[in-house]
C-alpha cells in the first residue's frame, strides 16, 4: 500500500519532492480549506487535485522553490473554482481568500500557545474534529486516516479489511454527521480538552495496534498503518506537546523498534526472548527513550507507564538480563484490566519463577474474563514449559493454536507444540 499521490514514472528527485510535500503538507492544506469553506469534500478534492497538478507540472517546469506554498495556492484555487461553479457568491469567496491572507502563518512554537487560542493550527482543529466522540469509533479512525493522513478511501478500506463501498459510506456518514449535528471545527475548550485528547490518542493507538498486529488474516504486520499512526502522533506532539501524546509516541516508537525482529524470514512470529536485538531499530529506541526522558515528572498516564515497560525491554541486552521486577512494578501502576492482568502474570513468571506466574494465570482463568483469548493459554503453555510441565504445556499450546486469530500466530504456536512434543518424547 502506497500513501499519497501517484509518483510512478517520475524522476527520483521529483518523486521524492512530491512524497515529501505530501507528508508535510497534505493535512495543512486540507485543514486550512475546511476552515475557510466548511466543506470537507471540496477540501480533500482540492488537495488531491493540487498534488495531481504537481505530478504533471513539476517534471516539466521543475520543483518549485517553495512546494508547500505552490500546493496551497493551487489547492485553494481549485477549491474556489469548484465553489464558484456551484454558485457560491464572489463576495464570499473573496472573503475566504482575504481571511486566510490576513491570518498569516501560525507561530512556530506551539508550546507558546494557550489552550483555547483562536490561532490554533488548523491541523489540530482537524485532528480533534475527526476524533469527535459523537462519531462512531470506526468512523473516527477512518476519517482520521483519510482526512488527516491523506490515505485514499480504498487504502483505508484495505487496511481495515472492509469493502470499499462500506468504507466510503462510513466516511460519507461521518462527514454528514459533522454537518448535520453541527460538530464544530475547533480545538475543544480547556474544560473538555483532557477528555477529548484521550479520545484522539485512543484513535491513534487503535490505528497503531491495527498496524502492529493484524487482528485477522494472513499477514501478522501491516507496517504502513503503524508507521502512519507514528507519523500522525508525531504531528500531534508537534502541535500539542503535552505529556500524554508524548508518552504515546514514545510507546509506539519503542514497540515499533522491534518490528523487523518480530518476524523471521518465513514471516513467522519470533517471541521477545528469541529476537535478535541487533535488529531492533536503534534510532526509534533512542527517540522513544529521549521522549520519556524529556517528559519525566509528568502525569503517570497509562501510555507513560506502558512506554516505561517497553523502555525496560529496550534497554536490556537479553531477555534474561531484563529487569523483570521493574516491569512488575510498572504493571502494578496500570488500571486493572484482564489483558493487563495477563501481562502482569507473565512478568510475575519472569521475576519470581514460572510457578508463581502460573498461579497468577490460573486466578485469571478462574475469573473467566479472558475466555477465548488465545494469549491466555499461550502464556500458560510458555510458563508450563519453563516449569518443566511438558504435558500441560502441550495441552495449552494446542488450545492456544485453536484460538489464534492470525496464521503466523497459529504457526508459531504449532511449532512450539511440535518442539515440546519432540522434547517430551526424547
Amino acid at each position: 500500500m502506497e500513501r499519497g499521490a501517484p509518483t510512478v514514472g517520475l524522476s527520483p528527485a521529483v518523486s521524492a519532492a512530491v512524497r515529501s510535500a505530501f507528508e508535510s503538507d497534505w493535512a495543512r492544506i486540507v485543514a486550512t480549506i475546511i476552515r475557510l469553506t466548511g466543506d470537507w469534500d471540496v477540501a480533500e478534492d482540492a488537495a488531491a487535485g493540487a498534488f495531481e497538478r504537481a505530478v504533471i507540472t513539476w517534471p516539466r517546469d521543475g520543483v518549485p522553490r517553495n512546494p508547500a506554498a505552490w500546493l496551497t495556492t493551487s489547492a485553494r484555487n481549485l477549491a474556489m473554482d469548484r465553489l464558484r461553479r456551484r454558485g457560491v457568491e464572489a463576495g464570499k469567496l473573496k472573503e475566504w481568500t482575504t481571511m486566510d491572507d490576513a491570518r498569516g502563518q501560525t507561530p512556530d512554537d506551539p508550546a507558546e500557545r494557550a489552550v483555547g487560542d483562536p490561532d490554533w493550527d488548523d491541523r489540530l482543529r482537524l485532528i480533534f474534529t475527526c476524533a469527535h466522540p459523537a462519531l462512531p469509533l470506526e468512523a473516527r479512525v477512518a476519517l482520521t486516516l483519510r482526512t488527516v493522513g491523506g490515505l485514499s478511501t480504498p487504502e483505508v478500506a484495505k487496511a481495515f479489511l472492509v469493502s470499499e463501498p462500506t468504507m466510503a459510506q462510513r466516511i460519507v456518514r461521518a462527514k454528514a454527521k459533522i454537518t448535520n449535528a453541527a460538530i464544530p471545527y475547533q480545538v475543544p475548550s480547556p474544560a473538555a480538552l483532557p477528555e477529548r485528547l484521550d479520545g484522539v490518542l485512543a484513535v491513534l493507538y487503535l490505528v497503531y495496534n491495527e498496524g502492529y498486529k493484524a487482528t485477522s488474516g494472513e499477514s501478522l504486520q501491516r507496517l504502513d498503518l503503524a508507521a502512519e499512526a507514528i507519523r500522525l502522533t508525531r504531528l500531534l506532539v508537534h502541535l500539542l506537546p503535552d505529556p500524554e501524546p508524548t508518552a504515546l509516541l514514545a510507546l509506539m516508537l519503542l514497540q515499533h523498534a522491534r518490528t523487523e525482529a518480530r518476524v523471521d524470514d518465513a514471516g513467522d512470529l519470533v517471541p521477545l526472548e528469541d529476537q535478535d536485538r541487533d535488529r531492533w531499530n536503534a534510532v526509534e529506541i533512542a527517540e522513544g527513550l529521549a521522549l520519556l526522558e524529556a517528559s519525566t515528572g509528568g502525569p503517570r498516564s497509562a501510555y507513560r507507564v506502558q512506554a516505561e515497560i517497553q523502555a525496560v525491554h529496550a534497554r536490556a541486552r537479553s531477555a534474561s538480563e531484563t529487569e523483570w521486577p521493574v516491569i512488575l512494578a510498572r504493571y502494578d501502576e496500570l488500571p486493572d484490566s484482564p489483558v493487563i492482568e495477563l501481562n502482569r502474570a507473565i512478568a510475575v513468571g519472569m521475576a519470581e519463577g514460572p510457578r508463581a506466574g502460573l498461579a497468577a494465570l490460573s486466578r485469571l482463568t478462574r475469573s473467566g474474563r479472558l475466555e477465548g483469548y488465545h494469549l491466555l493459554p499461550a502464556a500458560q503453555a510458555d510458563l508450563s514449559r519453563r516449569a518443566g510441565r511438558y504435558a500441560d504445556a502441550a495441552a495449552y499450546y494446542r488450545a492456544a493454536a485453536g484460538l489464534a486469530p492470525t496464521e503466523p500466530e497459529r504457526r508459531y504456536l504449532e511449532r512450539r507444540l511440535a518442539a515440546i512434543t519432540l522434547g517430551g518424547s526424547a
Partner: protein
Amino acid sequence: MEYLLMYTAGKDPQPYDPSDDNIAEWSADTQARGVSEYGERLRPGEDATTVKVRNGQVLVTEGPFTEAKEWVGGFDIIECDNLDEAIEIASKHPAARFSSAEVRPFMVWPDAEPGHRVVPHGFPEQPTGGKRYLMLVCVDPNGEEGGSDDVEPWVQEMDGRGVRLFGEVLRPPEDATQVMVRGGSVIVSDGPFTEAKEWIAGIDFLEVRDLEEAVEVAAAHPMARAGLMVLTPAWPFDVEDDHVERARREAPELGRRSEPALGVAS
C-alpha cells in the same frame, strides 16, 4: 442550531437522588445564557399512550411502544452555536448524572424564515385551560407502506384548532449524540442506545382537552399509519422546589397509570 435534549434511562442508569438534583441551577444558567427555548418533565412510562392506525382502525395501547426499554422522562429544546455547546449544556443537566441525555438536532429546512424557532418567542409556559402532551412521532418498520402523506394539512388543521403548540422534524438517530456524566467525567458517544426497531422522527407539543382528544389528534397524523405516535402528558414541577420533599410527595404516583384507561377505539 436547535437541539432536542431527551432524557432517557440510558445504558447505565443510576438511582435518582433528589438531594443531588440541581435543576434550578441548570435552569437559571440556561435562561441567563439565552439558550433555553422550552422544556418539560414528562410523566412516567405507565402514563404514555401509543396510537397507531392500521387498516383504517385506530389502535390505542397503554404505555410506550413495546420494544422500547427506556423511556423519555423529559425534554428541553435549546438553541446554541454547535454540538460541543449542546454537549456542555446537556452534561450539566442533573439527568446526565442519573440517566442519560440524547442530543438530537432538529431538521434545518432550506426555506425556513430567518429567525425561525421551534418554540415560538413568547410561548406561554403554563397551559391555557387544557392539558399538555408531548407527542413523539415515530417511524415503525412494521407500519403501513405509503402511509406518510404530506403532513402539512394536519399541521394546518391542528394549528387552526389551537391544539398543536409547536412541533418539528428531527434529524435521524445517526445524527444523535449521547451524553452521560459518571464519576464526574463527561461520557460522550454516538447515537441512541435503544435497540427498538422504532425510532423517533419528530415531536409535536399539544394542548388538548383530555387524552381522548390527544388520541384523536394523534390518529389524524399521517405518520399514525406509517409509524406510530406516543403521547405522554407533561408533569410540571417547580424547579425551585425542595426536591427531596417533592420526590416524597410524588412517590405514590409512581408505578401506576394515572391517565385514563383506554382500549381499542374506532
